């Protein structure tokens, strides 16, 4: 192969990358804009008037209403407020919270790290547990395998709230191994992460096992066996690769489970994080905070799914060429 040929190949490879990457990033931005707009429209048509919610049980006089309307710019048309909102977003200004009397960026930035660390720990725990159990039980009909399958079903069906309380009752209240609350280092992260991660391991474990079992029945498995490969090596080297593909697709779904679950888990364990901010913002109709959380969730989704898509491209060159 001459140098010229190599260079051309590299150029081709880069060109093959460029299109899909730009497309993914563009669609990611479009999704973000759609999420911001959808959130805005939904809140606009939600029952109840923002001024009413701001007043609550307090004094309701025309003067006070006028003051609140002026203070929050609620007298302008919805379209103007929307345009304003998008313009501010582009500048990176998330607005000011009606209820908390603080900048939304401030509120979220102080709460984002606890949630991220909880979600990541939970994800790692869930994935590792699912891998270990799937590898240990795939292709072998045994009591243990049945038990694991059943536990996975139970874990998926039981709400994380209950799992959290049960874990607390056993490992914190009775055994005293872990503290009940707070964000004090790794020890306090264990129970919440387990409660959140179990659900992931339940679903992922089943998908992995099914993929493994299907792969082990494929002709290539027979071929490999006929060459005298050990069963363990066959699972690790060959079957797992095939089983991982559908599992990787689940990553986007993980994001949803982790974000939604974090809301409940943070309340149960008295942990700081985005979950509590979200709940109080939604119930109090704290519009700027709600919108920011929606955008943040959309951003998380878009980032994860873009990475997954690009990972596919990296794994499977056929996908690059076919588009």
């Amino acid at each position, binding site marked *: 192969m001459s140098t010229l040929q190599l260079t051309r190949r590299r150029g081709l490879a880069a060109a093959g990358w460029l299109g899909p990457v730009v497309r993914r990033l563009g669609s990611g931005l479009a999704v973000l804009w759609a999420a911001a707009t959808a959130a805005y429209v939904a809140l606009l048509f939600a029952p109840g008037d923002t001024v009413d919610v701001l007043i609550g049980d307090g004094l309701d006089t025309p003067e*006070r209403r006028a003051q609140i309307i002026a203070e929050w710019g609620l007298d302008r048309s919805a379209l103007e407020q929307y345009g304003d909102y998008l313009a501010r977003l582009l500048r990176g200004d998330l607005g000011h919270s009606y209820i908390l*009397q603080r900048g939304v960026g401030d*509120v979220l930035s102080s709460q984002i790290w606890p949630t991220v660390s909880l979600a990541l720990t939970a994800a790692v725990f869930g994935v590792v547990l699912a891998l270990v159990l799937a590898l240990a039980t795939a292709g072998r009909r045994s009591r243990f395998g049945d038990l694991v399958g059943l536990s996975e079903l139970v874990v998926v069906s039981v709400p994380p709230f209950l799992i959290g309380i049960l874990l607390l009752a056993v490992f914190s209240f009775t055994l005293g191994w872990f503290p009940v609350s707070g964000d004090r280092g790794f020890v306090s992260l264990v129970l919440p992460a387990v409660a959140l991660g179990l659900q992931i391991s339940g679903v992922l474990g089943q998908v992995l096992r099914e993929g493994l079992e299907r792969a082990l029945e494929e002709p290539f498995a027979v071929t490999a066996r006929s060459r005298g490969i050990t069963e363990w090596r066959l699972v690790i080297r060959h079957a797992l690769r095939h089983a991982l593909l559908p599992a990787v697709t689940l990553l986007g779904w993980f994001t949803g489970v982790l974000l939604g679950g974090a809301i409940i888990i943070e309340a149960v364990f008295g942990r700081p994080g985005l979950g509590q901010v979200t709940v109080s913002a939604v119930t109090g109709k704290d519009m700027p905070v709600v919108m920011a959380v929606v955008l943040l969730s959309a951003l998380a989704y878009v980032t994860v799914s873009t990475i997954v898509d690009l990972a596919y491209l990296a794994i499977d060159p056929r996908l690059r060429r076919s588009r």
Partner: protein
Amino acid sequence: MKSQWGALALAGVLTLAACGSEAPTATAGDGGGGSLVWAVETQPITFNPHQWGQNKARLLVHNQFDNLIARGKNGEFLSWLAKAWEVSKDGLTYTFQLREDVTFHDGEKFDAAAVKANLDQLVSEGYNPAVKAIQLRNFGSAEVTGPYALKVTLKAPDGIFLDFLASPLAGQVSPKSLKNAKDLKAGGVDVVGTGPFILDRFTPGQEVHYKRNPAYNWAPPSAGHQGPAHLSEVTYRFLPEAAVRVGALTSQQVQVIEGVPATEVGLIKSDPALKLETSLNSGSAFSYYFNLSHAPFDDKRVREAFRDAVDVDAVLNSVYQGTAKRAWSIIGQGSPAFYDASLENTFGNNPARANKLLDEAGWDKRDGEGFRVKDGKRLSVRSVSSAPYVRDRRDVLAQAIQASVKQSAGIDFQVKLVDDGTAQKAYKEDQYEVFENSRGDTDAGAALNLILPKGAAINRTHVENAELDKLLAEASATSDPAERKELYAKVQKIVVTDEALLLPVYVPADQIAHGAGVTGVTFEPVSGTPNSAYDVRIGT
């Protein structure tokens, strides 16, 4: 594999032991010491006392802030940061003599100029419109007449001005904070007061931490001791789940919890290592108010019938296992200064009378499901509640009442738990027949002023009664306790007996549970809410 797990568990235990500083450790020294962890249900929206509005967050305010005036056991006003005060004969001029030895946490001197800065801030535009319009509606001006002398002039006599000065809303904030704080309305480490503790760390969603103010020497005479607080530090941890709070207490991870659900009371009482304290809240009782603006509650007979159809004692027993105090009037027993005890046992639990009244009112037929019908319309009444504000298992209580009125009188009581926007919309469009409410104001009169007068902020019964409005106005204008009691007795008679405007259900209460080694956990005398941590100590 096994030994590795064992090692991991051991590592966990060791780490925990290393973090063991959280356990109660009473250290010797002047005024004791030690640190305490207190689990509370609610994270405050704000730490600025001027913006305070949550009764569940009241216990935090007086750690950090002091008032000019305190309340005594029987509701009397006591000196605090104000050594003495005088009210002119016409009730328009208040002169205050302030303590001269008080400093704010930021080193600023507490003086008459500081008090004036606080009052002026409270009535400044857009700062706290509710206070400006209600508690300080009669405020005229504050004038510094000496370094430690202040004169306040009112536009009209006001019976609740002193109560306001003793309330969390009038906590004294350093003028420097008022000027420089980054987020004044939200409060926090940079909005400081003169109180026995200094807020030094707030982790939203998790906890707030206070350390002792060693210079503190100006506790009110009603406090259990003088000088600095006993505890060297106190942490309030936010645990919204009741079961988790109780578990944290029984496993000694926290030493005090606030908000003990009725279902857990038995467990705590049966544990010799734990103590439970209960206190009735001041203000209005938790009641079902009837909407008079349209059928069927525009008919007094139907209102009385609804009341008589419910066996409140039985309902409370089944829902709260005998831990709830039955209410008999719009004012709860937690406000003994105004409560009219003669209303007790004058109504309720009389299904025969309820059925007779409904027959007379024309609801004399029944449909297939056993509900009463008139002109082809079912006797349906709706209660719409905003879910975020439902506490104390009031949803379960509503279901019990629903079953009770259906069974004994054929009334279709519909309970709707909705989001706040939907609830506000229902109130605005008059799409409800029952309105559930209790208010925790220290002065029960303040609650009545919001609920009863024509056009009042939460007059959701739409009651219009000129005599009632006149009595309420008179009671607000005078500061003579005996006269106010008499006026409010008349108000209660009109509302409870003559108009049958409401079904009083129970008196809201606060519960605190704590380990046996903790002493000095008390309640505020008038509001009935938990006190600050000032008098609390660990060990003997």
